[in-house]
């Protein structure tokens, strides 16, 4: 594992409000918005957290929502 001298950090693009909104849209596209209660609650919380600047906790909630949708959708 060569450790390189002071490399410039690469930006992770998924840590952004834009990605939050994208995930939120992905969730909406399932079942045309007719979402289970738990999923829509996760989505709202996630989007909310992202808007208030807490991107990573928000992302976690949105992703959970997607995973639970994938599990219930064949």
């Amino acid at each position, binding site marked *: 594992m060569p450790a390189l001298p002071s*490399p410039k950090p690469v930006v992770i*693009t998924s840590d952004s409000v834009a990605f939050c909104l994208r995930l939120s849209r*992905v969730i909406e596209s399932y079942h045309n918005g007719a979402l289970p209660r738990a999923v829509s609650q996760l989505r709202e919380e996630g989007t909310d957290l992202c808007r208030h600047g807490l991107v990573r906790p928000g992302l976690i909630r949105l992703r959970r929502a997607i995973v639970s949708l994938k599990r219930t959708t064949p």
Partner: protein
Amino acid sequence: MSKPAAFAPASRQSGLLGLRSVSLRFALVYGTLFVCSAVLFLSFIWWGTVGLLEHRVEQAITTDSRALFNIWSEGGPTGLTMIIDDRLEQDIDDNALYLLVNKDNKWVAGNLAEWPRQITINDHWFTMPVKRSYTEDMAKVRAYALPNGYRLLIGRDISGRTLLRKIVTDTLLWACVMVTLLAIGGGWLVRRLFRHVIHSISRTTQAITHGDMSRRMPVQGSDDELDEIAITINEMLERISRLMDGVRQVSNAIAHDLRTPITRARTQLEDAALHAKNEDELRAAIEQAVGNLDNVTSICEALLRIAQIESGARRSAFVLFDLIPALQDVCELYEAVAEEHGLRFVQHLPDHLPFFGDRAMFQQAVANLLDNAIKFSPPHGTITLSAKVLSTARRTDGSRGKRLRLSVTDEGIGMSEADMARASERFFRAEQARNTPGSGLGLSLVQAIVQLHDGKLQLASNTPGLITRIEIPLPDAETVPAQSRAAHP
């Protein structure tokens, strides 16, 4: 302790090192051993946790890459882009990193803004910094080449693991420090304990060296090895002081018993020098003096012989032989003497009796007993020599063994109980025997010879007279070779 020879010159040069001290060496060995084993143990823990975590990350990335290759071969860049998006959407752990670029190094898919400049080699592990929303983390990544100049970067954010690793490493380092401290403390304790034991032994032995034979090692009563050493040393001291008492007693006796004939010889010579009137008187006195000096010589010889027998060196000359012809030989020698003294000499002997020992010495023992019996018997008495084999199960190993019982019985003046107990002491002579000739060493010699043959000498009263009994373990009859009987017809 492993190389005391190598330590020796250094310690002679600098006393400060003190490596000549066994206790310090012991403590150092203890400490080193303790630290080494602890370090080994902690390293094992380190590899078991941190090492395993890193390995897991690498494994996850490799598995991921294989899956993505399959997708690529089926769906090309479009399929791969979809899958990467999918993965990122469902990445609950929030640590996955992907980047797919085309041959112009342009972004196609993934969550990294650009291809990191430092990653120039494919199929190689890299650790690099990444910028998250409000932190800067470390990530482990690997680049893969795809057809048509596409390149794929797969990675994991390992900052969570880095934290764990830091905690474990710190803990283990602290443990190392603690262990070292413990080792030093333990070593110091071991050294003190060791010194305590050694000093206790050396104090006692020093006291004994300075003449205090009554000192003994303290026994704690805990039945441990230290007690064992203490008990062994005490037993040794016990035996030494018993031997010393014996030596003192014997040297007193020697001084006394040798002085008597020497005094006589001296008196005779001085008397002759002063008063002899003619040559004949002078010669007679000198002859008497020589006789007394011969007596001194025979006492010395007997003492030396007893000492030599007691040392056990003659045991190497032991052979198997038939005891009966050997006994008959001695009897033949003394029969005439008994007859001369008007005594009846009766023998009860079996036909054969295989015996393991020193033939000449055993004959001497029997001769001494017969000598005594004849000396102390009044006329018309009977002297009996009998030998028989007793069967017993009294051997230490529990097997049935045979014993020889040889007894010489007389009807003489006998001995009192108290005298019997002391009879085999050197120079001991019962009061009644003071006026009979002899050195008082006969029974001591018999005792020594019997003990050399692992036997016992017992005296008993015969009212009137004395029974002298010798019991000696015999060899197994089967092991006696036939020629040992033929050897002494």
